[in-house]
């Protein structure tokens, strides 16, 4: 069950904005900074997703172990 759908919109928004920043920086000829910005966006999204996953595993643990 998804309790809070706003996290989906948050991740989607971050994706769109990182893509925009990447394309603008690339257009201006700053390839390395563009790659770096994309990497940072990816890491941030990864952290959010891992938080959600850890919640999921905690819940499974609480269902089966206790």
């Amino acid at each position, binding site marked *: 069950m998804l309790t809070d759908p*706003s996290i989906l919109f*948050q991740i989607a*928004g*971050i994706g769109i*904005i*990182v893509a*925009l*920043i990447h394309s*603008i*920086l690339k*257009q*201006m*000829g700053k390839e390395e900074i563009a790659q770096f910005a994309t990497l940072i*966006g990816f890491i*941030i999204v990864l952290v959010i997703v891992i938080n959600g996953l850890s919640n999921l595993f905690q819940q499974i643990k609480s269902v089966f172990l206790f």
Partner: protein
Amino acid sequence: MKWIGALLLVGATTWAGFEWSHRLIMRPKHIRLIKNALQILEAEIVYSQMPLRDAFQRVAGQIPNPVHSFFYGLYAAMKEKHIDFYEVWKSQVDRLMERSCLHRNEREILYQFGRTLGQHDFYQQQKHIQLALTHLERELEDARDEQLKYSKMAKTLGILSGLFIVLLLI
């Protein structure tokens, strides 16, 4: 409350982006002003053969801010006390740096130029002014390139980074 904070954040980063792009746009203008001022100074020195102090006053009268206050400050400082000219020049250049959008390169050029000012005869002085003008022309090209490249990007990046931070915190 949340939305007010979000709006404030986006507004602040947008403003920062616009300020950055404004500095990029103003830099070539200020370099051009300094070039004009040096050309007027050359005319005053070589043709009118004025003393430096009066020449500075004349230049200040013909050039808008912030270069106006630079030359007027030089004139006022030279009228007030009789210390080493290079010290006066240096402190005024530093004050000009705070008020305008010039970079470190222009500061070095002006320092170098100030060292030669008032040390030579007309002919040599004219050569030194031409040298400073050539250096400034090079910097002007550079600044114009940078303006074309980055001024739009600075604005867009300001807005986008604001939206990004808001999305992260929401």
